[in-house]
């Protein structure tokens, strides 16, 4: 069964969507969409560096995104520039730098489109294994730190006064985000990872009454988007990564209609 490339793509996509849903909720709650965008765009620079230094791409992206996240958090603390400007500068300059670096790599065949928009149809069995192992670890940690992370998200000061180590909890969240970006690069590409994080979560907002149910709905909606998008791309012969995002967008439009009342 796993020999069929389409089945492999489905399994990989479903795994990634299931991790992205709950993590994406925190992204929406904390208004981190642009932060996530910057991290995922710069992930491409991680790819370029990995190709340049001939090291594992997923590992390079993971490390690079973490370094960048730390730099971002430190820069934002400075308050010398508005944080959206800092995010914009880093997102676009790292995107541009990665394209320049990739252009310099003449000794290898670089398929730029697959890094920008994902290459889910060529996912290997080993990559599926990585997705599911990493996913299980990420969701396990998320379950473990759920209450403190949510408390810090709602109000950091309140959480701290009542004994939660906000800095530690936030650092763990950033680590999880970096790993998801590293894993999801292959599925939807650097440009569209944030979409897979925030669109299902935004769909879920209209349906959910509690943070926990929102996270579960987000995972389910992400999975549905992957299935719809992949089948759509199969029949319409379109790029699969963007098709998944388009499917998610249609689901989002659906949640804006009165249909959502059925769930409440």
């Amino acid at each position, binding site marked *: 069964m796993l020999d069929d490339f389409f089945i492999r793509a489905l399994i990989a996509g479903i795994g990634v969507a299931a991790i992205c849903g709950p993590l994406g909720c925190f992204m*929406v709650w904390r208004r981190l969409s642009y932060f996530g965008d910057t991290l995922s765009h710069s992930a491409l620079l991680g790819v370029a560096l990995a190709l340049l230094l001939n090291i594992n791409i997923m590992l390079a992206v993971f490390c690079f995104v973490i370094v960048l996240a730390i730099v971002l958090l430190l820069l934002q603390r400075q308050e010398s520039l508005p944080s959206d400007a800092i995010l914009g500068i880093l997102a676009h300059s790292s995107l541009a730098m990665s394209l320049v670096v990739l252009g310099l790599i003449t000794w290898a065949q670089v398929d730029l489109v697959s890094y920008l928009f994902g290459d889910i149809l060529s996912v290997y069995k080993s990559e599926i294994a990585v997705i599911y192992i990493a996913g299980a670890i990420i969701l396990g940690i998320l379950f473990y730190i759920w*209450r*403190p992370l949510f*408390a810090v998200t*709602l109000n950091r*000061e309140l959480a701290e*006064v*009542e004994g939660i180590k906000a800095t530690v909890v936030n650092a763990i969240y950033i680590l999880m985000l970096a790993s998801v970006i590293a894993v999801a690069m292959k599925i939807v590409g650097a440009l569209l990872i944030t979409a897979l994080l925030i669109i299902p979560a935004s769909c879920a907002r209209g349906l959910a009454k*509690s*943070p926990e149910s929102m996270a579960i709905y987000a995972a389910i909606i992400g999975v549905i988007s992957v299935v719809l998008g992949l089948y759509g791309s199969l029949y319409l012969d379109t790029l699969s990564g963007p098709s998944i995002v388009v499917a998610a967008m249609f689901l989002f439009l659906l949640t804006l209609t009165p249909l959502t009342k059925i769930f409440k």
Partner: protein
Amino acid sequence: MDEKAPPLIEPLIELKNSGLKVRDRWLVRGVNLHVNRGEIVTLIGPNGSGKSTTARMALGIKKPSEGNAAKIANLRVGYVPQKLAIDWTLPITVSRFMQLTTKLKKDEIISALKMVSAEHLLNADLQPLSGGEFQRVQLARAIARNPDLLVLDEPVQGVDFNGEIALYQLIEKLRDQLNCGILMISHDLHLVMASTDRVICLNGHVCCEGSPKTVAESNEYQSLFGTHAAATLAIYHHQHDHKHLPDGRVQHSDGSITDHCNHDNHDHNNHEDASTNINYEHRADHEMGEA
């Protein structure tokens, strides 16, 4: 929750000559502060006087740049922050909010909500609550953790005048029932007065401290807040007795305020106007009688 433990000698939190400096500027300096179990301490001071900074140092969130901050081991704090904006992207019910930092049993949630008379809100969404309801729910959340220390930062914000009085009475009641210490932060003495044991008036440093009455009558307080603030204070006492303490003494104060209100203003709710018509001696007498 009902049994009364003997008050501990060791203060729950204590600051000794503490100050915090940020970028070469002292936010607050030379603060001595302690809160014991069963005691309500209020920090007052104008905006930017270092009240919140002082509270943060005392709670161990900010490390003082000078002096010492100490708290008892495993201090359990219940906190009602000054502004708690619930983002609309967060779907959350009262019951889930109550368990924000601690997992609770259903009957623990309900009994805490009952203490603030908000049990009917158990399954309500948090966002559409009114200011007063939300403050009550926040109080319930803070006490449901069974805290050693309650920290209330401007607890009556967004609550109307009568709601404010009710809320302060509730806080006093909670102190008695929970046998915890309470640290309140307020921008002026106003209504906090009646339910406070000790007031510390801040303006970058401790400018005066003592019983609410001493502070209200001190020159430092009046120069900070103006005599008008002291006058509104008196009104609260009249109002408070008039409405909520039907004993002999109230009869007396009830008589006096009715006198003034009937004379100058038929609108009983117009307290600000009424306050200017009460002379200071009369107010002082009245407060002596109460003390």
